[in-house]
């Protein structure tokens, strides 16, 4: 039913302004690109503090700083500031060759010294780096010519993957030591495709293209990223032509405007899932399995998310290394009813538990849980919804006090099974909620497994076990909607990062 403006206008004068004709976006060539971004940038240091682990702002960091290793749009690694990297035979040392001829934004030369210093800095607990537990596995970083060598204190198969993931950025040693933390916050420099021209907190950041970027000068000389936290305001920005590109808007709006302007929606390394806590009714496998089987994931994606979402049955997405398409959990409400009956539950005596969710943190998060609760109600599961803020979710999860069911999203842009199934399901990790002994024993040996093929197979077996016992309910892989004016071509990045240097003039 398309919108008939006359009926709306006839309806009531006071709300007539809600009738939307929509204006054709200005199509002429764009010299200064303006992006309406969905979150504000709290701090410019990508290696310490809460913003270092906030996946939504990594795109801003990747515009100004380079990571040790470049991650390509399909999540695969490629030579970045390091041209080659690897362990020695007995995996007691790591060796990294550093790219030459690169300069910092202030013109000073980029050297292997910067890489060694950056690695040592995030390994040092005093700096407050949240990923110290990974970088701490390397020590005694030293430089030989344009190579950096470090001793492996404790083998971590994913160490090089972290070099293109959270906090894996190279900072300028000389400049940082000269201006100090506060000076760096005021005037950050990196080796990245764009330089920071002007930063107005909570408002916008204006970027100038880095003329001698080692990866080639980006198309747009000036890029302004406006921080517009309200989704409707972002849509209004691009629709009124004030901005050229925006992301994270309701899918209905994306459908409406993509015809008029340009739109691209690609799956990203972020999944929606329901954590199950092994307390109360969730200790009964029949209840868990019934809950998993009675969720019609595809209908929810089609009806609620206008089809923008990829149904998943394990914590891996097709792009991840340990993805196994053969593990499936079908939508089978009848079987769910049988299972519940087996445990003594039914429509007249429904199983009751609480499900927690955020509201407005991820697209349609609250509506999805409402839809799931609706589906559960049909098979005899009475779930009571409790809304909490993302901050409270982290605290409850850290203290292992989440409700029997809790909806959450899990980002993992390196695609490695350890940072998805691993941290989410491994008992001792403060992030997992499921404490089953059997799972701990299965996952234990995989942390240090040196044979890559054997390691991946191990993780697939863990995923299969989890699916068969419904220890967690994966729902979908999110699809990121990006709207852009006709004058610009946007290449989406599977990590969900919106990168201006990947945007070309149409």
């Amino acid at each position, binding site marked *: 039913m398309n919108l008939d403006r006359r009926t709306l206008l006839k309806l009531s004068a006071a709300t007539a*302004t809600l009738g939307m004709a929509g*204006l054709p976006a200005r199509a002429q060539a764009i010299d200064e690109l303006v992006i309406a971004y969905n979150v504000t940038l709290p701090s410019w240091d990508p290696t310490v503090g809460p913003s270092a682990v906030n996946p939504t702002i990594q795109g801003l960091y990747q515009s100004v700083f380079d990571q040790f290793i470049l991650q390509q749009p399909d999540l695969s690694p490629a030579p970045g500031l390091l041209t080659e990297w690897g362990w020695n035979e007995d995996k007691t040392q790591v060796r990294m060759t550093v790219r030459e001829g690169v300069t910092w934004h202030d013109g000073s030369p980029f050297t292997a010294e910067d890489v060694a210093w950056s690695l040592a800095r995030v390994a040092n607990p005093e700096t407050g780096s949240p990923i*110290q537990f990974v970088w701490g596995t390397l020590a005694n970083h030293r430089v030989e010519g344009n190579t950096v060598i470090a001793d492996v204190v404790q083998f971590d198969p994913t160490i090089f993957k972290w070099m293109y993931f959270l906090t894996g950025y190279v900072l300028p040693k000389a400049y940082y030591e000269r201006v100090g933390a506060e000076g760096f916050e005021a005037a950050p420099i990196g080796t990245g495709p764009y330089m920071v021209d002007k930063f107005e*907190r909570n408002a916008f950041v204006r970027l100038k293209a880095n003329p001698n970027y080692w990866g080639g000068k980006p198309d747009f000389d000036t890029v*302004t990223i406006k921080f517009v936290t*309200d989704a409707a305001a972002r849509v209004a920005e691009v629709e009124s032509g004030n901005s050229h590109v925006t992301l994270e808007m309701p899918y209905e709006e994306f459908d409406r405007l993509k015809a008029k302007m340009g739109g691209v929606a690609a799956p990203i390394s972020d999944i929606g899932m329901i954590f199950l806590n092994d307390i109360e009714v969730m200790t009964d496998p029949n209840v868990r399995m019934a809950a998993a089987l009675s969720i019609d994931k595809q209908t929810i994606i089609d009806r609620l998310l206008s089809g923008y979402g990829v149904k998943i049955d394990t914590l891996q997405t097709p792009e991840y290394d340990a993805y196994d398409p053969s593990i499936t959990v079908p939508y089978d409400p009848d079987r769910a009813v049988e299972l519940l009956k087996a445990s003594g539950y039914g429509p007249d005596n429904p199983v009751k538990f609480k499900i927690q969710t955020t509201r407005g943190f991820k697209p349609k998060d609250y509506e999805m849980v409402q839809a799931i609760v609706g589906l559960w109600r049909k098979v005899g599961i009475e779930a009571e919804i409790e809304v909490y803020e993302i901050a409270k979710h*982290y605290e409850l999860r850290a203290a292992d006090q989440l409700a029997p069911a809790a909806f959450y999203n899990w980002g993992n842009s390196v695609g490695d099974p350890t940072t998805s199934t691993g941290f989410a399901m491994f008992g001792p990790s403060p992030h997992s909620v499921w404490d089953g002994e059997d799972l701990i024993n299965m996952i234990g040996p995989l942390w240090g497994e040196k044979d890559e093929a054997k390691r991946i197979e191990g993780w697939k077996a863990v995923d299969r076990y989890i699916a068969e016992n419904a220890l967690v309910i994966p729902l979908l892989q999110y699809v990121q909607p990006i709207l852009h004016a006709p004058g610009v071509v946007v290449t989406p990045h599977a990590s969900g990062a919106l990168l201006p240097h990947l945007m070309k003039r149409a």
Partner: protein
Amino acid sequence: MLRAVVLRLVTTAITLIGVAVIVFVVIRVVPGNPIALMLPPGATEEDVARLTALYGLDKSLPAQFLIWVQGVVQGDFGTSITARQPVLDLVLGRLPATLELSVMALVIACLLGGVAALTGTRRRDTKVEGAIDVANGMALSVPDFLWGLILILAFGVLIPVFHISGRVTPSLDLPFATNFYLFESLLRLRFDLWADIVSHMFLPALALAIPLAAIIGQLLKQSLKETMHLDYVTLSRTKGYGENHVILREALPNAVLPTLTLVGVQFTFLIGGTVIIERLFSYEGLGNMAIDAVINRDLPLIQGIVILFAVIFTAVNLIVDLTYAALNPRLRHGG
């Protein structure tokens, strides 16, 4: 007169201390401690302990408060957890934006409210006054964030006359020393910049102003209608003056005074209201920062922002009382 000033300062101090204590306790009782926010996948127990100690959140409540107070005395309001910068700089950096928006909203409210009240009085007991009353009622019964929503859709997108986000067009180079863009652009006679800033601020200011305008409109009309019955107004008519002159020259100056104190109080609610409107219009003021601070449980920043709001509130009250005394001849000339 001095005694009154001293008494006033003492009461203000008590209010600020009261606010500081309450907000300090409330935000530390709030579930979701900031450290948990910082924990990425895989962090371990001692990571939690290490970071908690780093931010001094492991000490007892009174101890934390003492540290905070000692800091405040030397002008150090602590460091923001998310922005990793001194709270004072962050907060003072954003204050001008909120103040300018509030002042602009006040001006719009006074204009709208004034015109409504004067027309209502001029056309009193007619359909015109009835319409104004209903309009005031409607303005009051729609929350300001809904006005914001309607304005965005109406003048931002349907008829794109005004900007709908941010405070100034980012591509402009701003030669400003202070953060008071609006006032400084006037002082520097840069009307091009001034126009751009006003175009950004007009819709949020209007959304804030509408409820206040309705209140001013009603109060001032009420006060005007009562003044119109007084003898000196009738006497002025016998001198041959027309109705408009009588309302503006004789009735208005005396009707404004009682309305002023009530507007003062409402103005503080308006400043409180910027929290939502700034969020809707992505306007980088104190309010917008406040919501982020609460979502991210940035305790020192929340503390700083609430204290600053309290200072603004007490300052506005002081200004209102002073203008009331200045305007009221009886107080100004004693006797």
